[in-house]
């Protein structure tokens, strides 16, 4: 005992903080196309190598390469591009709207648009996604009305959520988008329950769950994986590893010497690690997992490796905790740019069409905003006060009835 070095208390830190030079040298970014693609119905025990690879399809020249190339039709790719671009345009615009004091809160998906968009388009209408606030491209890909988003963000009289919920915490059942909430991690298990119900009722509705990499630390993540494994739930369990959780780097979620995808191994699930800024890789991995789930082989865990290019929300300034130019050093590029280059390389797109599409989407967003503002921004219009007392239960009890009277609603 006397000869031992003393114990050391270790507190991890990210590679760089403000004032230091941004660095992603700790990340190994393999070439596109190299990772093997096992049969989607193979045993999970035969895939324990995959969580330590990085599935990439788009190479540096915008070509789709390797066994994970999903061979998507150009039309499909253009729909994806549109959804991603719309998400970006909408986010930028609404972020400014918040700065103007027209609502209380906003969050952007900048740099992560490929994930929700590709998955939304690959999966089927009956499938249900259990979102985080960072996958709004799912809704944009499925054509959710922009003006309804705006009404919700303004909590105005037309708000589909009746003024009860924080901006962007949407619920859109008809668009396969489960009710969001501000607390992290809790809906992962709902997805598993939903998937089990699908199997029990044979409704063929897969569940797709999202969590941020930071939120994987919640106990709910583990309990969800356990249930998914035990009951072979037809679910796709996604981790969007965007490197940051507010000011905390991904290393704080406990994957030193490992990966988030590798969590799958201990549950006997396949774990895929996928370039989340590569629309084709996202689509392909999702399709593989969906095929597996629909064939009653159970759940797949997918880590999407991506980068949160903007701040966490309207409440923070990322230059206070990470180098200001970090985004520029991110080695996996921008998902919109990469899909655009691919389409151009395929000769299915060009800069002019891109510029035209951008203007078109900006106009759409402006029009939706105008319509929303005409009803009213936060505090200038709201649903009837009676809505505060509705929906607590299926039917209000005497307390709500009395209080509604007391509140003059």
């Amino acid at each position: 005992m006397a000869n031992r070095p003393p114990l050391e208390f270790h507190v991890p830190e990210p590679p760089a903080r403000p004032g230091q030079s941004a660095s992603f040298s700790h990340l190994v970014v393999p070439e596109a196309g190299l990772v093997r693609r096992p049969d989607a119905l193979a045993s999970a025990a035969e895939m324990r190598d995959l969580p330590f690879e990085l599935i990439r399809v788009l190479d540096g020249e915008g070509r789709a390469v390797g066994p994970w190339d999903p061979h998507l039709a150009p039309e499909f790719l253009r729909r994806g591009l549109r959804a991603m671009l719309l998400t970006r345009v909408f986010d930028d615009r609404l972020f400014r709207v918040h700065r103007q004091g027209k609502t209380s809160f906003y969050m952007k998906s900048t740099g992560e648009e490929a994930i929700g968009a590709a998955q939304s388009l690959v999966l089927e209408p009956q499938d249900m996604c259990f979102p985080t606030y960072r996958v709004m491209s799912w809704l944009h890909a499925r054509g959710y009305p922009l003006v309804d988003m705006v009404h919700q963000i303004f909590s105005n009289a037309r708000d589909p959520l009746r003024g009860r919920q924080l901006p962007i915490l949407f619920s859109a059942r008809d668009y396969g988008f489960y009710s969001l909430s501000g607390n992290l991690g809790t809906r992962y298990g709902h997805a598993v329950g939903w998937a089990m119900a699908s199997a029990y009722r044979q409704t063929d509705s897969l569940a797709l769950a999202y969590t941020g990499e930071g939120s994987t630390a919640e106990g709910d993540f583990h309990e969800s994986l356990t249930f998914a494994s035990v009951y072979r739930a037809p679910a796709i369990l996604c981790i969007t590893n965007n490197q940051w959780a507010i000011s905390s780097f991904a290393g704080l979620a406990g994957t030193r010497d490992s990966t988030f995808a590798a969590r799958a191994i201990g549950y006997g699930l396949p774990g895929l690690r996928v370039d989340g800024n590569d629309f084709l890789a996202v689509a392909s991995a999702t399709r593989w997992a969906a095929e597996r789930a629909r064939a009653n082989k159970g759940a797949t865990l997918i880590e999407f490796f991506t980068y949160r290019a903007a701040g966490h929300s309207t409440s923070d300034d990322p230059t206070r905790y990470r180098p200001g130019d970090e985004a520029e050093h991110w080695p996996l590029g921008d998902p919109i740019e990469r899909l655009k280059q691919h389409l151009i390389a395929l000769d299915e797109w060009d800069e002019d069409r891109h510029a035209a599409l951008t203007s078109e989407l900006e106009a759409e967003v402006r029009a939706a905003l105008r319509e929303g503002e005409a009803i009213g921004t936060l505090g200038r219009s709201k649903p009837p006060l009676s809505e505060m007392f509705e929906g607590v239960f299926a039917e209000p009890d005497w307390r709500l009835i009395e209080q509604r009277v007391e509140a003059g609603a």
Partner: protein
Amino acid sequence: MRELNMVKAINDALDVMLAVDPDVLIFGQDVGYFGGVFRATDGLQARHGQKRCFDTPIAESGIIATAIGMGAQGLRPVPEIQFADYILPAFDQLVSEAARLRYRSGGEFWAPITVRSPYGGGIFGGQTHSQSPEAIFAHITGLKTVIPSTPYDAKGLLIAAIECDDPVIYLEPKRLYNGPFDGHHDRQLATWAGHPGARVPEGRYTVPLGKAAIVRPGDDVTVLAYGTMVHVALAAVEETGIDAEVVDLRSIVPLDIETIVASANKTGRCVIVHEASRFGGFGGELSSLIQERCFYGLEVPIERVAGWDTPYPHAFEWDYFPGPGRVASALRRVMEND
């Protein structure tokens, strides 16, 4: 009519609901093949199949999360938590999710789940097999909380809870499973045999949520109780000879405010009894509601008889448990202070 004890009545309710509604699923730790540590799900897997009644991992939060997800798609899950003390790991799922889903989603999703759990003391179960957590649920907007005191009510309330579209916490007073325990642990223990509340009809029937039962009408003092304490209160009333009106709340959310107010206005005296520790317990809510609504009719202060403000102590089971002696003293006090 046949008589059932409370476990069997609960089992019967589950059996009926599995038979009539294919959307009802039952799951929890040891509830499947084994039939539950208290036998509440005995035989259900054999009768209805493994997909209708099955075991889960030891993960209470996961159990409730699973139930919510199933409920959101249209099933009516009836998860069991093995002891109410072990609901706590699932508290966030119940509060932040089950209770709030309908409200926050503008009515697009909701959680029609019924969480069954044995609660309460009197079985020498020590700290973590004896607690009464109803007060923390009563405070949560969006949750209903139901507590039966007889086999008849247990079945009827459970069916009503399962059919209800809101999340319901259904707490089973485990000390009543085998008999109407009145707190006299040192006397011969009664079974349910011969008790009117043990006459349990076959098939489906409901006892509505939010309707209290006046289990003993009386004029002098109102006693509010639920679960095991209903029987303790009845024993205390009997022993004091005081003409008390004993009200079994049956569900604390929704609460039958009308019955409570009518009784308190009639008697002008009130004793509230619960097993949970006193401070911040549900008795506080009951006492203030009565005080607010019947102030000018009250003759004496409303009393609360409850567990002490200590954890549940193994060796001191009968010192902690609010037995008929303590209830009787309270009854005498409110009658004395005339």
